[in-house]
């Protein structure tokens, strides 16, 4: 067992809408990542993946508000820290974030090297420019990016190149945790592969100690991360190792997600894709029972009345369903 880098306990955050309604987009989420490990978060749009990523940074701006819970990075609790303090001492050095539209994050009037100067100067104002340039050049070359990129403007780069540049910039201070929020979903398969290779490289060379990877593409998660966590309506519904989750999902929702995988391999054409009917519930008034009950094939009356806690089984696996695990397995086998 390695050292725990990031630990989150019962984190709850909410959005306050303009009608003063509370929307709990992250609802009692607990997770922990060890050194050198990566965690994948899967789920469909609107289930709280991106909100969780934002919440993990501990830096909240309206309409997102912190409610309760702890975020501990390397033994330091950041959940109750002052926002200014977080911005100066946590973001970039302890935890870094690659947003979904990272490709549009670069200012078109600046050269790439200027962003790196900015990032480093914000944390170490006295570092001479020459050292920064040397560091940037060395880092870019190690990550397989041509160092000529540094003297270019963002518009001169292709989409995949921009994405990789953004990743290189946001990890220049060697953060302990990197949160990648759908870094490859706007790219074609070849550029996607390059992005993944780069993230792997960062982990292997030790520039980042652990990674959280958010996506809805399950085959990708399977190839990139060690563990997978499935979210639904702000809650974790299932947790486990990547292999277990893909080949042996337990929760009906995870099962449904795995049913929508398409890969160019023999036999894919003969299988009918199993889409999950319906849409996620409105989190302004979440259902009192199981949140997935309305879309679940196996739902009973009891499901809609009692809420369920995460139940642990096996090594490091847990699921949130009222139905017994043996019975669920039986149901799947009968299909």
């Amino acid at each position, binding site marked *: 067992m390695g050292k725990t880098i990031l630990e989150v306990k019962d984190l709850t955050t909410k959005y306050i809408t303009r009608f003063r309604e509370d929307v709990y987009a992250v609802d009692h989420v607990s997770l922990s990542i060890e050194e050198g490990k990566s965690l994948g978060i899967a789920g469909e*749009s609107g289930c709280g993946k991106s909100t969780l990523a934002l919440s993990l940074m501990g830096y909240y701006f309206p309409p997102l508000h912190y409610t309760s819970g702890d975020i501990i990075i390397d033994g330091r609790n950041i959940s109750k820290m002052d926002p200014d303090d977080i911005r100066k001492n946590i973001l970039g050095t302890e935890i870094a974030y690659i947003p979904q539209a990272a490709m549009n994050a670069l200012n078109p009037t600046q050269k790439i090297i200027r962003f790196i100067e900015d990032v480093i100067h914000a944390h170490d104002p006295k570092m001479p420019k020459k050292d920064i340039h040397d560091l940037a050049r060395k880092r870019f070359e190690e990550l397989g990016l041509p160092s000529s990129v540094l003297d270019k403007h963002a518009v001169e780069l292709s989409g995949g190149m921009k994405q990789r540049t953004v990743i290189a910039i946001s990890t220049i201070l060697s953060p302990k945790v990197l949160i990648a929020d759908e870094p490859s979903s706007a790219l074609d398969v070849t550029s*996607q592969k390059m992005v993944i*290779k780069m993230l792997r490289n960062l982990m292997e060379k030790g520039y980042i100690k652990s990674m959280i990877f958010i996506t809805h593409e*399950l085959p990708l998660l399977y190839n990139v991360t060690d563990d997978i966590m499935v979210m639904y309506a702000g809650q974790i519904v299932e947790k486990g190792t990547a292999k277990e989750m893909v080949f042996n999902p337990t929760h009906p929702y995870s099962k449904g997600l795995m049913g929508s995988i*398409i890969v160019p391999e023999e036999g894919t054409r003969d299988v009918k894709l*199993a*889409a999950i009917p319906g849409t996620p519930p409105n989190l302004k008034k979440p259902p009192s029972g199981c949140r997935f009950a309305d879309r679940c094939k196996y739902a009973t009356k009891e499901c809609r009345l009692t809420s369920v806690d995460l139940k642990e089984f096996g090594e490091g696996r847990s699921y949130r369903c009222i139905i017994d695990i043996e019975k669920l397995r039986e149901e799947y086998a009968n299909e």
Partner: protein
Amino acid sequence: MSNSKPLCLSGKGVTKVFGFGSKRTVAVDHVDFEFHEGEFVSIVGESGSGKTTLSKMLLGLINVTDGQIFFQDKPLDISTRKKKKEYWKDIQAIFQDPFSSYNVFSKVDTVLLDCIHMRGGKHLPMEKKIEMMTEACSFVNLKFAELTNKYPFELSGGQMQRLMIARIFLLKPKILLADEPTSMIDACSRATILDMLMNLRNEIGMTIIFITHDIGLAYYISDTVYIMEHGKFVEYGSADEVILNPKAEYTKRLISDVPKIYEEWDLSTV
């Protein structure tokens, strides 16, 4: 390729060149293609391979530099605005970004009513129109009664893309050009949309041209696959033939780049 069905859309030596002199870029380079009626065709390629330029030429949004596109065996004539409008009754498109595909000022029922009017249903009684709209919405699993007073931007991405398919259902064009309709949508709604496109083909019998960079999707959904690299078709044929026994290096690379679950994913090729 032998296909008993009549030709719907075909092209000979279709070329598009942007710029001239030192900035001359050949986006689409002398491509030949034959799309038959009721066929599900996929065009697969990386970003920058000229897929979207080709689709714009097929739609008549930009002119061809060289070569000729044939629509139902007649040369395509879009020289005047009137002829273009006539052509657009037969070909319709779904684009990548559902968020920018709608007029922000019109409500959902206006969007659908426009389609009925375009098909010459302007003088139908209102009850009949509502019945048609409800039918179209139920085809894509949307509830018309819940949508009437909403604006398109109040819907989710998947719902918008489904509304787009409802429009196509009302318009009943001969050809549907779908330019990466699922790339901005999560994996779960993607399955629903693919199923709807297949239903559309089976019920109305339209030709669907599906443009994508995901070779897995192309394999799952289409009858015929065209692989495009740098403005040229490097390989084409039936989906099974192309994907299971690829001949071109480029196709092999595309297939190896897709993350797999049943075999090792080789990261060393890039």
